[in-house]
């Protein structure tokens, strides 16, 4: 009988990939990363044996191994120069960007970077891009997921700050690729949080998501309606988070220390130690109202008192910045704070009492944090992953966080796609030549809100060639911007009179070149080879176990079919296989399996003969073939 004909409307297939593994959601955070999955209705965070969900986004580069997470954070105390933390702040950044914030970052930045390239870090004797460091974090998170699920994890929805620009998004996708993950989608962190929140609490209406983490700040305004999560406006600051709180506190402590001990210059490692004390003070002052914290450097200890009021003074300018950005985003959404029904708090830094107070004051309502602010983003990502691989009734409609435009005469930026445009989107704009007979035109793609190109972020440059000779202003160059659902941009340009065309997937100015990516992939393949070896060994052992059990069972039932010497020969081979399987050489294990197979061939043959003979008794000839097949399969087991 043929299967019933299935007719679906496009996009309505209830279970598009019944056999596809459920994809996971990953929150790749500045400070902490998490992996979650949504089997059934409720998403859950995947934890290690000790029940820990958060993997600190900290990587230690030791002589012979790479360590990620809690252990790497411990290593930071003794070998600060081998450890990278908060690398997310550098994703998609150029060396120039980083030098601008130099001194604020506890890294040593590799000096010689060919201009325009991606920034590189010098750590533990290696030179690494932020993409590679992020890939190491993703590998660790993926491994945790695989251990918890007992299967391979290959597809994931990965979250990014809503205001991440094109370069940072591309860098995140590259990191996933290096870690052996297909990034099904990049989802904006606040949108993911809203999804988790809305689906769990059945929220409807206008909501704001206020996400203040370790390194980044995001604010989104969404409308939740009948399972549709429509982002109205979004904004944020890529360099505003708990790390900056730590920075101002550490500076305060170090100034005190300098007065006391007359110390001047700190090494990068020493700065990291001071930042750790500052962070401890900040976090403890969430519950305590005052306390005292030591800083130990070069064997000398200083003690620093801090109370909640002083902490508030220190961090207030930073919180003010977040509040001002929030007001701007509300205005973009054409909403007033009173219109918002609820404010969802996301990120560890929303635990700081001053942050809560100022959010409450702005919106005039008690902020919501009943889903763990540390986990809500990963849970939302897991829900979206399930929606993409298994179908869902919920739908996310997101927007572009930053305006996209082109450089025009005089270094001005002409916007083609304004910020907060729903995606996917495609917009075209016409430009013309400004010289007689001009045959090529440089197209410089920029992202940002400023009028001057130099104050925005340069995304890519390319040249449209082969424009036929015309007088200035006669050519019609149509530039098309297309932004996909990941927020990634493709630009194409065409001279409409003649159809001369050129297309570029925007290769970010601060991205990795194709060659660099290929080199890294090769290197990660080598790691993959080690992993593969381990897996093959495990498989060989499983094969060995399987045949030993089968032969053992057969001997117990049918030993009568064998002579004494035949039986001893088989038992000797079994003994040999057991011994080899203890070792680490999968080839030898495979050989021993083969040898045991050989030694039992005759035995298996006799068992099969007997099966067939008994099967033939009283069986119609037409069914014979089937039975023989079944018997053979049985004997092989």
């Amino acid at each position, binding site marked *: 009988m043929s299967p019933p004909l299935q007719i679906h*409307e*496009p*996009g*309505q297939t209830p279970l*598009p*990939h019944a056999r*596809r593994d459920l994809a996971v959601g990953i929150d790749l955070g500045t400070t902490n990363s998490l992996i979650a999955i949504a089997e059934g209705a409720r998403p859950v965070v995947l934890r290690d044996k000790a029940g820990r969900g958060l993997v600190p986004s900290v990587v230690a580069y030791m002589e012979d191994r790479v360590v990620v997470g809690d252990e790497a954070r411990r290593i930071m105390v003794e070998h600060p120069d081998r450890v990278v933390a908060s690398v997310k702040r550098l994703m998609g950044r150029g060396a120039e960007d980083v030098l601008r914030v130099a001194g604020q970052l506890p890294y040593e930045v590799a000096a010689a970077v060919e201009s325009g390239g991606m920034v590189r870090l010098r750590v533990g004797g290696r030179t690494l891009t932020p993409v590679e460091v992020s890939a190491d974090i993703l590998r660790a998170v993926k491994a945790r997921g695989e251990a918890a699920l007992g299967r391979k994890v290959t597809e994931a929805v990965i979250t990014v700050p809503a205001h991440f620009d094109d370069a940072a998004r591309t860098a995140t996708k590259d990191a996933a690729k290096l870690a052996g993950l297909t990034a*099904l*989608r990049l989802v904006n962190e606040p949108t993911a949080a809203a999804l988790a929140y809305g689906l769990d609490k059945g929220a409807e209406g206008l909501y704001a998501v206020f996400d203040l983490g370790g390194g980044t700040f995001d604010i989104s305004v969404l409308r939740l*309606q*009948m399972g*549709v999560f429509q982002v109205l406006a979004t*904004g944020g*600051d890529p360099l505003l988070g708990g790390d900056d709180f730590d920075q101002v506190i550490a500076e305060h402590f170090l100034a005190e220390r300098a007065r006391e001990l007359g110390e001047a210059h700190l090494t990068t490692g020493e700065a990291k130690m001071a930042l750790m004390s500052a962070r401890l003070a900040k976090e403890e002052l969430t519950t305590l109202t005052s306390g005292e914290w030591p800083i130990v450097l070069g064997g000398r200890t200083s003690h620093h008192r801090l109370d909640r009021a002083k902490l508030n003074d220190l961090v207030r300018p930073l919180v*003010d*910045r977040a*509040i*001002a*950005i929030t*007001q*701007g*985003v*509300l*205005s973009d959404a*054409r909403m007033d704070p009173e219109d918002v029904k609820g404010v969802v708090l996301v990120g560890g830094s929303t635990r700081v009492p001053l942050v809560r107070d100022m959010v409450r004051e702005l919106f005039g309502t008690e902020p919501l944090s009943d889903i763990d602010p540390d986990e809500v983003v990963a849970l939302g990502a897991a829900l*979206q992953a399930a*929606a*993409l*691989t298994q*179908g869902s009734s919920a*739908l*996310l*409609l997101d927007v572009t966080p930053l305006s996209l435009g082109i450089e025009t005469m005089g270094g001005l930026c002409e916007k083609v796609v304004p*910020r907060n*445009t*729903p*995606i*996917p*989107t*495609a917009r075209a704009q016409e430009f013309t030549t400004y010289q007689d007979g001009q045959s090529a035109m440089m197209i410089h793609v920029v992202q940002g*809100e400023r009028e001057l190109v130099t104050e925005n972020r340069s995304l890519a440059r390319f040249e449209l060639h082969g424009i036929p000779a015309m007088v200035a202003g006669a050519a019609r160059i149509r530039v098309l911007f*297309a932004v*996909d*659902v990941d927020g990634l941009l493709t630009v194409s340009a065409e001279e409409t009179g003649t159809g001369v065309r050129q297309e570029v997937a925007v290769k970010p100015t601060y991205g990795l070149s194709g060659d660099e990516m290929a080199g890294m992939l090769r290197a990660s393949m080598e790691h993959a080879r080690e992993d593969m070896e381990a897996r093959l060994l495990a498989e060989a052992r499983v094969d060995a176990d399987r045949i030993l059990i089968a032969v053992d069972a057969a001997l117990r039932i049918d030993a009568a079919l064998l002579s004494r010497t035949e039986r001893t020969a088989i038992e000797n081979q079994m003994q040999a296989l057991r011994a080899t399987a203890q070792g680490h050489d999968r080839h030898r294990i495979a050989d021993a399996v083969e040898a045991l197979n050989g030694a039992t061939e005759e035995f298996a043959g006799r068992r099969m003969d007997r099966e067939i003979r008994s099967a033939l008794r009283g069986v119609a000839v037409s069914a014979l073939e089937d039975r023989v097949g079944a018997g053979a399969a049985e004997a092989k087991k």
Partner: protein
Amino acid sequence: MFAILGMPVQFEVDAAELERRYFAEQRRFHPDRFTGKPERERQFSMQHSTNVNEAYRVLGDPVRRAEHLLLLAGQPARTVEETVRDPVILMRALEMREALAEAQSRAEIDGVLKAAKGEALACTAELTKAFANADLQCARTLTLQLTYLQKFIEEARERRTRVVGGQSAGAHS
């Protein structure tokens, strides 16, 4: 644009109906519904979802909707150069600018904002009439007026944000 969302070709739009159709289309055709589908279907979904977004943007905004209707009627909307020659529009724009510049407190800005919103509403009502009467010349002028009003409201909102936010201006740095 109207056809993409199955809306009648007219200036008046039932906002709730527009929303309902927009969500319904995206529910069916958004690229998230097509992961793992054949390339051709994915292409189609991307294209259609993009068009639906564009139609929603145009139909949901009175100025864009009016401009689109004028374009359909072969009477493209008036350009900025034409405005400079229209003393009535120009005068009113200057007056409002002045009022905003003079407003200092949040309450004062709110007052200016409220007046502008009232004017925009009245202008939209007149536009509806002009389109209903197929008076395209009148519609062109009103569309331009509404464009100015919208821009002004935008600016006033931004001003107000800055007043509320104290000295922390430049929300989108």
